[in-house]
């Protein structure tokens, strides 16, 4: 249970429109992740699904039922807030039972559900504490527990891990993935952390300025970004872009390396830093001068500049001995290259 369909959703706050016509289907049991730059409308969209705000126009369906005008209470969804929003004056147990008491669920069943959530999230020993007496990670678990006990049609999570430190974020991320596998409930997850998006999602929705840029699986997005924005947004470090003029299906990269291009006129060539490697032999190559070397141990990130000043980043495996100021020659495989037309849309090779 838990198929969510958005149909032509728009939202304006006063005169400012922040969501511009979103069509989206989230399948039952799917973990969909909304990513995008700050202010692109991720939280707003989630709140529209939750029923905390009403769309200006469009339709929202949950399991085939039109809930556009239904109250948040009527939608059977549970939300995990970025701030956790735990009731500060209640114990953990009271926080978990509060929502269940509203449904007039019998006491023994409430206790049973709380025990189960306690076991699942390992917060069993914290039941009599108040939120102020918990660590950030523990609060996060309680917030998730409060959603789980409700046994909702779908979970809505707004940047649930952003208040945790890097290490804890990693652990909780793995735990969320495990939880989703176990519960098999639809989840809509908002984040601006790419790693979270890539590792957790069945489906990633990339948003920009209140519009959907692309919807795809994590690898689909990585391998076939539909436009320049997605290409630049997904993957770290960011994709390298070279602006070239194509004539007769050929174009020249700065430095004179020529390659076949599926288009004419102004074309952007995109190559991921991981797709570049040191050229062997004297064949044609991309010639750059190193600006900065970041040795990370297992790999080395090299920041360099092409002949025309275009910045080029490459991630080389191992610890090659390189230094700033040194000229190097880079090569790449033909299938690691992406092409985008003057309108920013992908050109198929």
């Amino acid at each position, binding site marked *: 249970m838990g198929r969510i369909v958005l149909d032509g959703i728009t939202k304006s706050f006063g005169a400012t429109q922040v969501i511009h016509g979103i069509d989206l289907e989230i399948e039952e049991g799917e973990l969909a992740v909304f990513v995008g730059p700050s202010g692109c409308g991720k939280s707003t969209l989630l709140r529209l699904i939750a029923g905390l705000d009403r769309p200006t126009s469009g339709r929202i369906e949950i399991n085939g039922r039109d809930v556009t005008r239904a109250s948040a*209470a009527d939608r059977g969804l*549970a939300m995990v*807030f970025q701030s956790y929003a735990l*009731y500060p004056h209640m114990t953990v147990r009271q926080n978990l039972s*509060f929502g269940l008491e509203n449904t007039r669920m019998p006491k023994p069943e409430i206790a049973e559900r709380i025990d189960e959530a306690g076991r699942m999230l390992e917060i069993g020993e914290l039941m009599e504490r108040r939120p102020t007496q918990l660590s950030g990670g523990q609060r996060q678990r309680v917030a998730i527990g*409060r959603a789980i006990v*409700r046994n909702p049609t779908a979970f809505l999570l707004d940047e649930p891990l952003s208040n945790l430190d890097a290490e804890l974020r990693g652990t909780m991320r793995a735990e969320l993935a495990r939880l989703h596998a176990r519960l098999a409930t639809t989840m809509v997850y908002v984040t601006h952390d790419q790693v979270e998006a890539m590792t957790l999602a069945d489906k990633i929705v990339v948003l920009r300025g209140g519009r959907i840029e692309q919807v795809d699986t994590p690898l689909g997005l990585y391998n076939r970004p539909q436009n320049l924005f997605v290409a630049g947004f997904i993957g770290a470090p960011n994709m390298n872009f070279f602006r070239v003029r194509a004539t007769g299906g050929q174009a020249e990269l700065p430095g004179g390396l020529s390659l076949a291009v599926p288009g004419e006129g102004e074309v952007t060539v995109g190559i991921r830093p991981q797709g570049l490697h040191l050229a062997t032999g004297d064949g044609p190559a991309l010639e750059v001068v190193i600006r900065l070397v970041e040795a990370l141990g297992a790999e080395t990130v090299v920041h360099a500049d092409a002949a025309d000043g275009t910045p080029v980043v490459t991630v080389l495996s191992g610890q090659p001995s390189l230094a700033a100021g040194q000229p190097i020659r880079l090569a790449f495989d033909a299938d690691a290259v992406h092409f985008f037309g003057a309108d920013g849309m992908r050109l198929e090779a």
Partner: protein
Amino acid sequence: MAGLGQTLGRAATWPLTLAARAVDPPLRAWQRRTGTGGMAAVFLAPNLLIFSVFVLVPLVLNFAYSMTGGTGILLGQRPFVGAEQYARLLECQDYTRPITCREDQFWTAVGNTAQFVIFQVSLMVVVSLITALILNRDIRGRSFFRAVFFFPVLLSPVVVGLIWRWILQRQGLLNLIMVKLGLEPEVWLNDRVYAFAATIGVSTWAHMGFYTLILLAGLQAIPRDLYEAAEMDATPPGRVFWRITLPLLGPNLAVVLVLALIRGVQIFDEAYVLTGGGPGTSTLYLTQYIYESGFASLLREPGLAAAASILMGAVLVVLTLIQLWLSRRAEGRKAR
């Protein structure tokens, strides 16, 4: 032109410069002698002086007067009687019936004040809470209403008393309206119950803006996402109020309760202007009793008044300590 402006400016600051030059050498000398720590005393001195003259000395004097008898005004003309004034005030056969007490007026005032405090403070808490809850919502003209409810706080209590006397007196506004509507006029302020209720209503009206403001601040400090979490949990509005709003507003409510208690016990100006304690002694409150027995009655008894005010002060000190404890606890809770 710039030259003229500068000259004028210098002329205007001339007295200040002179004064600064005048106090500079003694201050420097003092600082050399006492170090920077001693300078604190210099800057605190004016305030301490004012506090002493207007609070500390009168307090001590008041205590001294309460130990003396007779009708003399100056302390030197008054014989020392020890705790006799207190004994007089406290002498009573049955505290529930003021008439059996030696100073029956005192006990009438105590009884009236107690009743006043119970009704007025309950009313105040409920009314200011409801007002705060309404003003905290997204209603049209919210800032206008906030101003409207706060405005009476800015009025002098005497003005408040006068306004309401014009409304409630025999030929006042209220009776005028009632006659226009074809109703029997009522002598509001000559009726024991109406007059008592009027002092409660008027003092509540005059001060509720202040308490509403405290509660409004408390309401706004409750994170909005708690209400959204409750909304997601399908919590009925009544339960949201009792289980979320009220507990989280607890510290502010406690502060309001105790502050209203303290000010309720001290009730004087607006009630005195409104009813003068009447009809009879039905709205005679403690402060009025103290004022009249000490200054305004034919037979002035400063000693008795001083003793009564010391007793009232003791009650207020207890209430103030409770208030301090509560607000400190509220601060502690917020800091966590």
